[in-house]
């Protein structure tokens, strides 16, 4: 059970305890607001006031939208999905917290949770059940598990509540020298993304190596396309012909004999994961075909799928001289 003295009204510095004491004296929310001014400045706490005390809120400015009722934990269930790795490059530490904002006051948000790890092919290899109490942080460390190494796969965390919050899990990928972190991605809604990296000479000759973790969080396989294109005159969205272009002297003279993009296709099984060293698998082979005088970029898309069937993509930088990792997701 969570108890706390969270601040409700930041404008007038009133805690939940202040307001409960005030209600004893003033009885109605409107009267309380008149006296204590809570919820009458920015309005950001009005949902909280309604949650705790119900009734009518005093109007402010042009505020005309009535707040809905709220509670700490809604009935239902949620499934979250994310990437984990275990091996010489990195280990993974997963965190999910069952805290409730202090402003919501005393809440029992305890939840049952199921934690499942899937290997790269989408096969479940470990499943555990937990009880996560209110305010508790759940964590799982691959370094302390018996996963095969090297391991790249998906983890799911299912909770028995319908609303999310701090329960959205983060993964910290770490090694002795450093750690980096981002959050789970149950479904990104982005079936078409471009890695925000310009693979130019400076980057290719620099100290960073890029890795991708691409996951399929859905119930059927996804056909993924990986397209490397020249940024300034490249072919981002048109058809790609992977055959070498004609080497006719006229075309060479006109400068249109170079291919503008190269594409690879791979099928990613349900709940499966691709772990891809981007330089070796895509950029270096493409640069031999597309040339290195212009920066290259990488597009990842699934042409047959819509926003409800998008893959999840995480990208990692490994700074070789210091062994420092950094990351984010698309």
């Amino acid at each position, binding site marked *: 059970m969570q108890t706390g003295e969270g601040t409700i009204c930041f404008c007038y510095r009133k805690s939940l305890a202040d307001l409960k004491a005030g209600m004893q004296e003033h009885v109605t929310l409107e009267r309380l607001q008149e006296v204590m001014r809570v919820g009458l400045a920015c309005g950001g706490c009005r*949902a909280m006031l309604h949650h705790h005390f119900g009734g009518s809120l005093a109007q402010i400015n042009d505020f005309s939208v009535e707040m809905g009722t709220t509670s700490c934990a809604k009935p239902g269930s949620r499934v979250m999905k994310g990437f984990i790795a275990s091996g010489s490059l990195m280990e993974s530490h997963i965190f999910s917290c069952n805290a409730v904002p202090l402003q919501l006051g005393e809440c029992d948000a305890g939840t049952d949770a199921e934690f499942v790890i899937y290997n790269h092919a989408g096969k479940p290899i470990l499943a555990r059940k937990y009880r996560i109490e209110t305010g508790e*942080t759940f964590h799982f460390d691959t370094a302390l598990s018996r996963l095969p190494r090297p391991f790249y796969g998906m983890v799911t965390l299912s909770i028995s509540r319908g609303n999310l919050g701090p329960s959205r899990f983060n993964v910290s990928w770490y090694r002795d020298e450093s750690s980096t972190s*981002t959050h789970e991605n149950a479904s990104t809604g982005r079936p078409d993304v471009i890695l925000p990296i310009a693979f130019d000479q400076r980057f290719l000759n620099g100290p960073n190596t890029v890795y991708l973790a691409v996951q399929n969080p859905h119930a059927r396989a996804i056909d993924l396309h990986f397209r490397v294109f020249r940024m300034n005159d490249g072919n981002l969205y048109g058809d790609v012909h992977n055959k070498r272009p004609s080497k006719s002297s006229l075309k060479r003279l006109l400068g249109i004999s170079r291919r503008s993009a190269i594409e690879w296709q791979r099928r990613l099984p349900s709940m499966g994961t691709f772990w891809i060293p981007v330089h070796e698998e895509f950029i270096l082979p493409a640069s031999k075909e597309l040339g290195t005088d212009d920066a290259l970029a990488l597009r990842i898309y699934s042409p047959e799928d819509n926003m409800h069937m998008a893959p999840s993509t995480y990208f990692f930088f490994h700074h070789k001289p210091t062994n420092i990792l950094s990351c984010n997701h698309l």
Partner: protein
Amino acid sequence: MNASPSSPAQGNKVFYTGVLPPIKDYITEALIFPGTNAREPYEKQARFSFVFRVISGGREIARTAPQSCDEKGHVRINIDACMKGKSETAPSFALVEVESSADIPVSFYFAHIHRNTGIYYPAPAMMFMGDIIYPHIHAQQLENALFWPGVYYTSNTEFQLAVINPYEVPMSIEASGWHNTKGTCSSGMIRISPQECKWLPLDIWVPKSWRDDGQPISVSVAAQFKLVAEMVLINRSNGVITSTDHLHTYHLH
């Protein structure tokens, strides 16, 4: 309540923000391909324009010239070009004005490259209201109560909570820590001036006994307005940032 970071909204202008690392130590770029969202179901011949502003200590210290592209193009923004002869007076943040002629959502990332080592970390640009504070937005999810699950103290990484106030009115925030057996701790109430970015090192406001006991901690931050807050991970051996990412809202439904 008007709290415009610049001029009032015009057309389809949307604002994005993100914490900037110290500009003397980092090059910051943004490589943006807005067309990835312009394909089906949109299929509109949209144009996009971007203005990248650097805000430090409550004022704009630099801005890039507007750059634009169509659905099949891209823009590449480097803030070094507009920072010549200028310096930060306080922690800074980016404020990016994006106009899309067809209401097409744009997602993009900042790339922060450490000048001395070349260590590279990406961070998402966070969309926010920009022009007006809408109190009733909190009805569905508490956008003024954000969480970061999982701070795990190791010898290599320091955690700092960075909070941006992009509005033209002051904001009060309070950060809280959650420990599995020791309850909660608080940063106390902290005022953030208009258009200011504040970094709150957990080494300062989380008790040392919590940091030393090997148990994970989770963090929340609350305020009266919609918040933009990021957790910054810093390598203790060389001071280089290894990631920043945003906190999550608490959903009521």
